[in-house]
Structure formats: C-alpha cells, structure tokens
C-alpha cells in the first residue's frame, strides 16, 4: 500500500505559539490517542521534540523562537494503530519571517514555493490577541496587525491563485487559535468566545471564506498560562500545563486530504467504467454473426483490456470504501468544531 504524502505549512506571527503547539501535538500523538499515533521518520527528531516538551513540562521553559532563516522541517508518519495512513512533511515557518522587514528574498521565495505545493496550511492566531479583539471590536485593525493577518492572507491568496492556474484543489486551512485559555473572560466561557470568533471571523480573515476553501477553526491550548500582553514569555508555571485539542488540526488535514482524494477516485472509476462499456460494445460487435470465429484473437485482446478496467474499478471502489470508513472515524474527533466550506459555516 502506498502511503500518501501530505505537505503541511504552519504560518503565524512571532510568539503566537506555533512551536509550542507542535511540541504538544507530537507529545500527545507519539504515545497514541484514540488509536492514532505519530512518529518522526528521523528518530533523532523525536528526541529533540521530546526534550523540548520535557523542558516545558519539567521546568516550565517555553521553546525559543526559531532563529532568523531557521524555519524547521519535520517528517512525521501518522498511523492508525500499526497501519500507516499518511506521511506529513511539516514546516514550522519562523514567526519573524512573516514580517517583511526581517525577511530575506530567498526566505520569501522558499515560503511561496512551499505554499504552492502545500496540501494543508495552518494559520496560527494568538488567542490572547483574539480575546482583546472580542473584548473591544474596535481593536480589529490592531489585532490584524499583531496577528500578521495581511502577510498570511497575501501568501495564502498567492498560493491559491497558483493552484487555481494549475487546476489543483486548494489546500485545507486550519485556523488554530492558540492559548485558547485566554479566550475566557468573566463574561464568557471558551465555547462562547469561539462562537463569537467564528461569527466574526470573516472580518478578521476573509480569505478562509473564499469559494473552494475548506477551513477548520480549532482552539487549542497547552496550558492555562495567563496573558503576558505583548511581552514574550520564556517560562510558565508547570502546574498549569493542561493540553487540549492539539491533535485535531492534524486529524482535519488528513480527513480533508482523503476527501479530496475521493473526488479523484470517483473520476477514475467513471473513466474506467466508460472504457469498459466501450470495450464491451466492441466485443459484442465482433461476436455478432457467422464471422465471429474470425475475430477470436481480437476478442481475446479486448477481454484482457476489459479485465484490466474491471480490476481498476474494483480497486478504486475498495479503496474508496476504506477511505470513507477512515473519514467517518476521523470526523468523530472533530465533532462540534466549526468547519467553513465555500464560505458557509458547518457545525
């Protein structure tokens, strides 16, 4: 069985919690969750991720920001039990790189090339900034600036345009709201805050409402660390670590990838069925009348072609059933999470 390879890119402003999210996601999925496991292809990368997570859990030390021109790459394998489902080529784009003032030309061109071939893009939004916007809607421009929304949107639109020109489907988008604990306020719970965010998301991130885009809005948190304002926090109280939802973005990426693949399978089945029908007609014509025995060699050749079409149809249908089962299983993990499809909200 060939395991599909998914390219995933994570974008977000500096200090938005991208790397911490990645560490927490890996920690949870590396020991298994609801039957799903993740491991790195390179065993040493697993040790690096584990050590960085342990530093957070044991000493409260948050990971250092990725240095200038030091975006990080990982290759993960995503299994259901012992069955490999997908390999993920993951890029943790250094936060500062979204800021044009600090970004080199090669850095940007690398990112653009990467986004053009990304199957899934994670937009990381700092929950603390979102909370301030929810508290005071007039702060939308400030929130956009701090979340680097313009840079993210520009990159995303450029990638979508590229894929449209190439006739490729758009990548799935996950709007990850990190530090989700900060969404809570005396007057609202996290659930209410999320509903508010989704309700007003079009004002903040209109790009995810474009036709052809499927986006999940997913709040996550590593712990209840409180608000530090604009100051970069380097350490937290280990007693407050309480990861929630960190595995869901990856589940969604896989689910969307399989769903897009179903369309391709359906086309393949349709083409094979049309081919089979044509071959059967040719065979029927050759077998008609007294001269049928003269065409026995040609008929045998066509029978082989028909057999190949039948095999293709059966294989594609079998794989479709397997993918549908898996999509159904994966969707349980995302129940009650808002998904925006072609600009329409689904719950």
């Amino acid at each position, binding site marked *: 069985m060939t395991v599909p390879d998914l390219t995933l890119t994570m974008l977000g402003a500096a200090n938005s919690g991208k790397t911490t999210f990645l560490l927490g996601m890996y920690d949870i999925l590396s020991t298994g969750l609801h039957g799903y496991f993740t491991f790195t292809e390179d*065993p040493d990368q697993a040790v690096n991720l584990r050590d960085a997570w342990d530093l957070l859990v044991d000493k409260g030390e948050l990971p250092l920001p990725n240095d200038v021109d030091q975006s990080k790459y990982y290759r993960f*394998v995503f299994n259901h039990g012992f069955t490999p489902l997908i390999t993920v080529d993951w890029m943790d784009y250094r936060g500062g790189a979204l800021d044009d003032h600090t970004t080199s030309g090669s850095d940007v061109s690398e990112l653009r090339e990467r986004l053009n071939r990304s199957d899934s893009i994670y937009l990381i939004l700092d929950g603390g900034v979102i909370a301030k916007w929810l508290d005071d809607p007039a702060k939308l421009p400030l929130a956009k600036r701090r979340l680097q929304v313009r840079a993210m949107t520009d990159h995303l639109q450029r990638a979508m345009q590229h894929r449209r020109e190439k006739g490729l489907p758009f990548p799935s988008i996950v709007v990850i709201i990190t530090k989700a604990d900060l969404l809570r306020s005396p007057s609202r719970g996290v659930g209410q805050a999320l509903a508010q965010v989704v309700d007003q998301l079009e004002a903040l991130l209109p790009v995810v409402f474009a036709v052809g885009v499927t986006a999940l809005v997913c709040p996550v948190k590593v712990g209840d660390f409180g608000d530090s304002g604009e100051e970069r926090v380097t350490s937290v109280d280990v007693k407050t670590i309480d990861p929630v939802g960190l595995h869901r973005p990856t589940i969604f990426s896989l689910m969307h990838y399989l769903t897009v693949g179903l369309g391709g399978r359906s086309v393949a089945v349709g083409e094979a069925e049309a081919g089979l029908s044509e071959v059967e007609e040719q065979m029927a014509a050759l077998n008609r009348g007294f001269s049928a025995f003269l065409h026995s060699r040609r008929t045998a050749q066509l029978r082989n072609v028909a057999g190949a079409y039948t095999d293709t149809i059966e294989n594609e249908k079998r794989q479709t059933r397997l993918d549908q089962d898996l999509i159904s299983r994966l969707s349980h993990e995302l129940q009650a999470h808002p998904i925006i499809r072609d600009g329409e909200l689904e719950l």
Partner: protein
Amino acid sequence: MLGNSGAGKTTYLSLMYAEMSEGVAGFQVRARSDAQHQVLMKDARGIRTGVYPVVTHRRASYELALRYNGTEVLPFSWRDHRGGAASGRTSDADDVAELHRDLLDSDAILMFADGAELVSSPRAAKAFGRLSGPVLRALNARGQVPTPLVIVVTKCDLVNLRDPKVLEAVRAPLRELIGAIRNSKHIHGTVQLVSCGPSPSNVIYPALWSLRWGVLGMRERLDLVARQHGAAARAAVKKNTRINRLAARFWGVPTNGEIALEERLYAQQAHQKLNDLIPPVQGLDKLLADVSSF
C-alpha cells in the same frame, strides 16, 4: 528487548535463563557459550540473594537455543539493550542506532515497563508510551511481517494488583498500544506481569510465548520447503521420458528421474524436520494454554 532504564530487562533475562536452563515441562534454554551461561547463572544467583546485576551500559547479545527433551529446536539471539538506548539520539551513542536496526530485524519484540513506576510516576507512564515510537517506526518499515510483541510489566511483586486503582494505573499507559495490536492483523501481542526479585514469578512466559512464534514460523518455512520440493519432484517425474534420459546421458547431466529422486529426498527431510517439531509445538501449546494473547 527494549525498555527504559531500570525497567529490569537484564534482571529478567538472567532469571528467565536460570529457570529455563533447569528445564520446564521438557523445555530448556541453553547458552551456546559456556561463558555466557556462567554470566547469566551468576547474575540469577545474585538476584535470588538480593544482589541485582549492574546496569547494562551497552548492547549485549546472547546466543541461546531452545531445546525440547534434550534436542535443539530453535537457536536464537537475545539482544539486551541499554535502557537509555530507546530514548537517545543516534548521534550520541552507537547502541541507539543498533537498537533501531535490531527492531527492524527482530523476529520478536519484548517491551519492558516498570510496574512499580507505572503506578507511582506519571513520568514513567509517559516514558513507556514513548517506546511506541521506535517500535512503530520499525514495524512500519517492515511492512506486514508477522511479529510477536510482548509487553512485559516487571516488579509486579512491588504493587498490589488486586487494588483496582493500582491495576488501572498499570493498564492505562499500555492501553493505546494494546488497542493498536488488537486491531492489527500481523502483530500478535500479550501482556505479561512478572516479578524479578528473589522470588521470581511468571518469568518463563514472555520468553516461551515469543519462542513459540519462532517455532511456528520455522514450521511454516519447513512446510513451504517440503511442498516446493514435492512439487519439483512431481514435475520432474512427468518429464522423465526416454528422450530425456538419452539427452541427459549425452550431456552428462542428471536425468529428470534422478532429479525427482533428489527432490523427493529433500522433501522427506523437510517432512522429517516438520514431524520433529510436532511434539515441541504441542508442548508449547499446552504450556501456554492459559496465556491470553491478542
């Protein structure tokens, strides 16, 4: 064998060896070299008096053989890896890469968890969960190769497994991996609770359960060899014509009749070896009848 530091891998090996070398229901495990036999027996004697073997600093490999009623049934290598090897970087120590290579080649994998630590320390539970990574990585690379995987929970004499809370603390960190094994068609698993102190208990079962899969694998291979030689013999008989005999004499090569005889001999030899395996397989089945596996 892989597990975190202090999980009791080396202690387990010594005690298992000592018990099996004395013989259990006709089965015996013996080291091929006298030096290794002496080391393992000395360690086991020490453990029985409360002196535990020193921590393994590097991978140790023991060449052993399973015997039944005095006849060798299955030779095997037993690899004891340093505890830190499962969680180290390949760039830090050679034995880390050796562990990854061994996992790729092993016919059976034994994962060790310290039962007492599972109960008392969430860190230990997490550390055991993280052992899944190297195992999954290796088994993914191997494809659908049937592989027995034993989860050995050690130091069970130090915890009260009759207490439901304690039992749950032991079970919880194993649950995801057990679920994965249950859902797999090619991975066969069992969980074995053992005590490796001065009064060892259950120590023979993880080894014997793994060895049974080794013996069954050998039986399958022999069966295949017997069938292949049988088919070759039948095919040669069909081609054993007068012309073939004349041509073979002319070219100085064996006739199809001679080839058939030779193939039949190989098939008989394979059948004989298969027959020899019947008593040990039945013996292992009987011995392991109460061992639950999934």
